[in-house]
């Protein structure tokens, strides 16, 4: 996949710092984002399927209908790359904030 990630993808990868299943990821995302991001189950399932196809995540464990996922090396690299890109964006726009303060 090329280009920037969507916010939802970024948060799913963030939440997968520790292996977890879909519903646990949804709760984790809510916690990480202080309740700002509330992902729906349909969106979550779609993203997990997509990321598995992209080889960003892999199936860690399958407990009946619940599946636990973990980040792959590719996924971790993509997350770091996105993190750096977002940092650059913030850095580039920092002068606006500084101008506002002075």
């Amino acid at each position: 996949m090329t280009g920037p990630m969507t916010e939802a993808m970024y948060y799913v990868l963030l939440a997968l710092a520790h292996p977890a299943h879909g519903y646990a990821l949804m709760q984790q995302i809510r916690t990480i984002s202080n309740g700002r991001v509330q992902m729906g189950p349909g969106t979550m399932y779609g993203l997990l399927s997509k990321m598995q196809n992209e080889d960003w995540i892999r199936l860690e464990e399958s407990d009946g209908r619940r599946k636990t996922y973990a980040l792959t090396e590719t996924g971790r690299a993509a997350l770091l790359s996105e993190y750096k890109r977002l940092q650059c964006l913030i850095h580039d726009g920092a002068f606006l904030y500084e101008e506002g303060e002075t």
Partner: protein
Amino acid sequence: MKYTWRKTPQPWAIRETQEYYARMAAKGWMLDERGTRWDRYVRSEPQTLQFWLEFTQSAKGRSAFDDPDRIPEEQLQLYEDCGWKLIAESNSVHVFAAPAQDTIPQPYDMGDPQQDAMLQQLQRFYRKDLLVFLISLPLLILLFVASGLAPLQDTLATWWWGMFWVLGFLHSAWHSFYGFQQMRRLRRQLCMGHWPTAHPHRCYRIVKCSLAVLSLLCVLTGLVQTVLSYDRRYPLPEQTDGLCLIPSELFGLERTAVEDSFLAQLDPSQVNAVRIDYAFPFYTLYNAQEIADHDDLNVWQDIYVLHWDALAPSMIQSLLESSTFADAEGYVSVEIEGLDGAWYVPGGMEYIAWKGNRIVYASVHGRQHSERLLPMLEATAALWSTDYS
């Protein structure tokens, strides 16, 4: 348990359907089964619920063992974890319900995948119909061509099942055309940012109902004709190797088996394809030898069992035109008691006898054959009147 049935809302009117199910639940009617035409509701306590219609997404990335019409178990579990309960499902549509509370997350927080999935489903559905239409078109043409185009009128007017097929074909064509229009309408609405809504589409229903009524009439007519013609299925003298109308009593004829090697030499064109369309089974090439004086008199007979009586004139015309040893003009019609019709070639070798839904075509070869045609026709009529049932 108390049930009630309501017409299934149109599949593309997603939001209307969700709201409708919620209204029914509030009235104390909970959706129990979703069908293609009718939904079943069960009596329950009035509940304040929200509903969600989930369509099966495209099969990409799914296991070959997954049911293509069902959402994956993992997705189902996720929905249940979030408070959505699967209430009913049919034809790739899954209906979820949850208490109408803010704490229950909406299945999708971005985009409208419902619409895309719904369009995919509809497209798949209409494509299947188009496929049936495209397959039936050459088959129908083939039927007419095989019938020899000349009896096209007969095919349409007398073959009730032929008409039934034509109507089925028209129904398929109409449905495909409607599907094409419907997809265009839905895409246009979605491009304009509108959620598709239910609409009465009266024209579609009128045409569809008319075709269904006509098909039903065809079937009923066919059944009536079959019943009416049933009494006219005169039994024929049956022997171990099939039906036989050769008057064996006449001229001391004895029926003999036709050798396979001889049959193999025969030109298949002797049996006209048109006859097969008219006749159900047909029996051909029986050999009878006169044993009285060991003379070489042979009688070949074809017996045709027609689908029903009204096909007889067309069948007889076909036999006259494709007669092996004479032109159609060479035949003379003759009235013989006990037969619906009889023809023979004066000074020739062939005769045709018709009674009810049976026709016998025979050719006589050998000494004094031309003198024997009329007596044989009369003997055939007499033999036919005998009750062999």
